[in-house]
């Protein structure tokens, strides 16, 4: 087995053993930390250890029993849902328009839509804080949703763009040559075929908002503090085991979303 050839250039599996070990270790480094938190969150003591010496649900009880954490969770879920509802149609229509046009204006709009991913988020955060202060929407749900929509837009555009690449745009032309308007061709011919892409984009937008810290740090607060914002402030003071319970729940959501997206991509081929 170890003497078998592993590459076209004559390296054996034995000669590559270090590579297998190194890759295994790095992959473990990547996935283990977040996954180890899950069993640790069921710890019976205030001190988080692995494996826990005693088991309990007390940190989950602390989380579900605290009005402060619950309010923040509701704000975060509302913000994530609204961000998805706003950013997906905006990103989808922009991406579709850019696909159809070839003008320099279109290219410029394309660059603009990628800016939220390029400009350092700390700068975006203080910029929003500054403008919101003049509009009086700091610490409001509206402000959080607008900020998160801005951050989610490039992700939606990239996801839809990748999906449209495998879509044959001649179908759109065929529909129009048969008398359908651009709008009708989009809703009846294109949309049903890129449904899965749109669901992926929606999930990415949802997760982007749900996990966002930096912008929320500046523009959310008071009764409209998001969950990550509250977690961040709590972590600056101490390692509260309640956060282990919340982290486990967030990890489960993220991994769940990833699995759904992967399965959909596999089905799309």
């Amino acid at each position, binding site marked *: 087995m170890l003497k078998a050839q592993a590459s076209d250039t004559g390296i054996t599996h034995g000669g590559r053993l270090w590579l297998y070990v*190194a*890759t295994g270790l*790095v992959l473990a480094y990547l996935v283990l*930390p977040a996954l180890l938190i899950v069993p640790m969150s069921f710890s019976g003591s205030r001190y988080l250890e692995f494996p826990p010496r005693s088991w309990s649900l007390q940190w989950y009880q602390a989380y579900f029993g605290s009005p402060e954490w619950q309010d923040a969770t509701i704000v975060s879920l509302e913000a994530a849902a609204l961000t998805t509802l706003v950013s997906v149609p905006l990103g989808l229509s922009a991406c579709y328009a850019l696909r159809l046009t070839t003008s320099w204006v279109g290219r410029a709009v394309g660059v603009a839509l990628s800016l939220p991913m*390029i400009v350092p988020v*700390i700068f975006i955060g203080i910029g929003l804080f500054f403008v919101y202060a003049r509009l009086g929407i700091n610490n409001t749900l509206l402000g959080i949703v607008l*900020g998160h929509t801005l951050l989610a837009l490039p992700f939606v555009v990239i996801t839809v763009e990748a999906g449209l690449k495998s879509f044959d745009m001649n179908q759109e032309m065929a529909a129009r040559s048969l008398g359908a308007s651009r709008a009708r061709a989009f809703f009846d011919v294109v949309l049903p075929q890129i449904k899965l892409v749109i669901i992926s984009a929606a999930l990415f937008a949802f997760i982007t908002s749900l996990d966002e810290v930096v912008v929320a740090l500046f523009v959310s607060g008071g009764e409209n503090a998001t969950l990550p914002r509250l977690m*961040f402030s709590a972590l600056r003071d101490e390692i509260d085991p309640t956060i282990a319970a919340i982290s486990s729940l967030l990890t489960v959501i*993220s991994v769940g979303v990833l699995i759904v997206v992967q399965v959909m991509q596999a089905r799309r081929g």
Partner: protein
Amino acid sequence: MTAVNTLELSRDTRRERVRLLLPSGPGFAVVLLLLILPVGWLFLLSLVDGAGHLSLVNYERLLQPLYIRTFISTLEISAIVTGACVLLGFPVAYLLSQLPPWLGSLGMIFVLIPFWTSVLVRTYAWLVLLQRRGLVNNLLLQIGLITEPLQLVYNMTGTIIGMTHVLLPFLILPLYSSMRAINGDYMRAAANCGAGPTKAFWGIFMPLCTPGLTSGVILVFVLCMGFYVTPSLLGGGKVSMWSMQIESNIALYSNWGAASALGVLLLVVTLLLLWGVRRLLGADRVYGDA
């Protein structure tokens, strides 16, 4: 076709072009109002002194030792983290790209799981694992590598471990896809022509995956320079990053001029790096793969 008709047609095409762009309007408006306008506004603020006169005082202040130290430590940390990402990410991307596609994709799930897990959650995990009586110290004590718990967190060490962990997927993803795209025939041809594994790797494989490696390196470096969450939690106040200076200028001193100047400079450096790579590699490679 008469001249009038041609004119009419070209006018029609133009009108159609404008109409086609309309659906991108709302998305563009969001970026314009929430990003371009605020950043432009802050840029103007950075050029004004306390009395409201046009001046470069905010930029001159950046030459103070406090800020110079911050810039140096930000660049230092970014370089170390980027180096660590290359060291850890290259073997992974290479092996996964050489495996059969289904197995490679399965391995990539291990890269994507952290990619989609909250940065805050992962930072918290490191806080727990690296603390004085945490899992890592306990393991090291048990196997006898150390006799006393090491200070692994709330310092530079913890910051680098955590930042590398968060940014590693950004290096592996573009590198993996550029390695996957390399046609196996080239390596077979090299072997056929008598090149040993080492020669074929350096002569054929490396040059072909360099674009993916470069875009990964720049992406990680740029993200490092603007990183806030992980260094401010794992650094424990001992590590000073560019982004943390921006935050403290707003939160502690409400000094918009200073914060804006720091932000503008950070943005300029970021754009220069990205622009340099675009020039180097051609436009769509930097983000195309990631």
